[in-house]
């Protein structure tokens, strides 16, 4: 039930972001809040978090209007990579978490660019991603604190993984 709550939170956040972007006109500076939640899931939930990641990917695909499954597959790779890297870092430290979000964001945008290239979906998006990758990753890091705080509230005692 709380897992469903996190998906509802993702929908609310993405809807809010979409409405704000309509007003703010920030070109391609559109932070990936669902990726922020994916990294949260990697830190705080066990292997069962994969189900959530699938849900988050489908929601992100729906909101983004990108080819179906693009974000879902990227998120699964990112989730696996972050979980794999947790053996080498102390996940409970805030700075480690923030750096992880930054690196995961860059990794995710590179993966998306690679998929656009592989699927021959045009050079335009690749150029945009390469141009905006760092500002987007920074924006994700900045928004991670409030988003994670909300996610902790939603998940409650379930958010007690190694990153807690």
């Amino acid at each position, binding site marked *: 039930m709380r897992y469903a709550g996190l998906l509802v939170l993702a929908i609310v956040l993405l809807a809010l972001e979409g409405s704000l*972007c*309509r007003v703010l*006109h920030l070109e*391609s500076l559109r932070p990936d809040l669902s990726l922020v939640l994916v990294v949260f899931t990697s830190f705080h939930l066990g292997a069962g978090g994969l189900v959530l990641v699938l849900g988050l990917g489908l929601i*992100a695909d729906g909101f983004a*209007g990108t080819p179906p499954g693009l974000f879902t597959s990227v998120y699964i790779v990112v989730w696996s990579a972050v979980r794999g890297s947790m053996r080498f870092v102390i996940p409970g430290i805030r700075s480690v978490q923030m750096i992880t979000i930054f690196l995961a964001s860059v990794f995710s945008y590179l993966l998306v660019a690679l998929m*656009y290239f592989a699927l021959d979906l045009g050079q*335009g*998006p690749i150029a945009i991603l390469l141009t905006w990758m760092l500002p987007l990753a920074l924006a994700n890091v900045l928004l991670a604190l409030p988003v994670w705080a909300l996610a902790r509230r939603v998940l409650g005692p379930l958010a007690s993984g190694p990153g807690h």
Partner: protein
Amino acid sequence: MKDAEEQNALDRGLLWASGPLQNAFVWLIDGAAGLWKDYVWLLDVREENDGLKSQVEVLQRELANQKEVLAENERLRELVSMRQTLGAHRVVAARIIGVGTSPISRFIQIDVGSDDGIKPGDAVVASVGLAGRCTSVVAAYSEVQLIIDPRSAVAVTTQRSRARGIVRGMGRDELCKVDHLVRTADVEEGDLLVTSGLGGVYPPGLPVGTVTTTTTPKVGVFRHADMAPVVDFRKIEEVLVILAAGKQRRPRAPSAPGTDGEP
């Protein structure tokens, strides 16, 4: 009034004595008046000032609202003008309620859906030209793929020379590319591109953009061009959806002998 000769010593004495006194009184009165004016009266002025400030704020808000209403009125007027150019097509006006959250795709969400007769594939226009087409539709909302989305393709023709091409989005608000222009196509910078109607998705003749640059490679069948959309996608707030059911077929030329006519 006494003449100068009539002024006696008493008069002069009084004047001598009262002059400084009056001068002192004037000083005192002026000082008191000044005190009143500069300090005591200012207390009222301050209150008045506060009142005026709040009135100014109210008026500024009202002015901003008026400007907003005027701007909206202007946009709607342009939209109505576009509505008239669409002729017999049935259209539904919609307000944009959100944009896609991906940095690379260009989608918007509008506040009309299947309850209003919208179907996937319906063309969407802004006040000055083509905006995109509906891709997914629910009861009260629809998602619109803009022509600047990287996966969008619109069959166009130049208004001047009728050269045909395909406009593809690049994920940028101000730039699209034009593919499949034959090498010999007569295309110049500044040419207006309009929908050709090929493919049946968009009605013909809708303004799409103006050619900004053209390049002809040394080899190859096609030449390339860049296009600036006529719609400012950073500013649109309202759109018109052209209902598929209301689309009209272009009047066909009479069938030549030996060709297939419309049944």
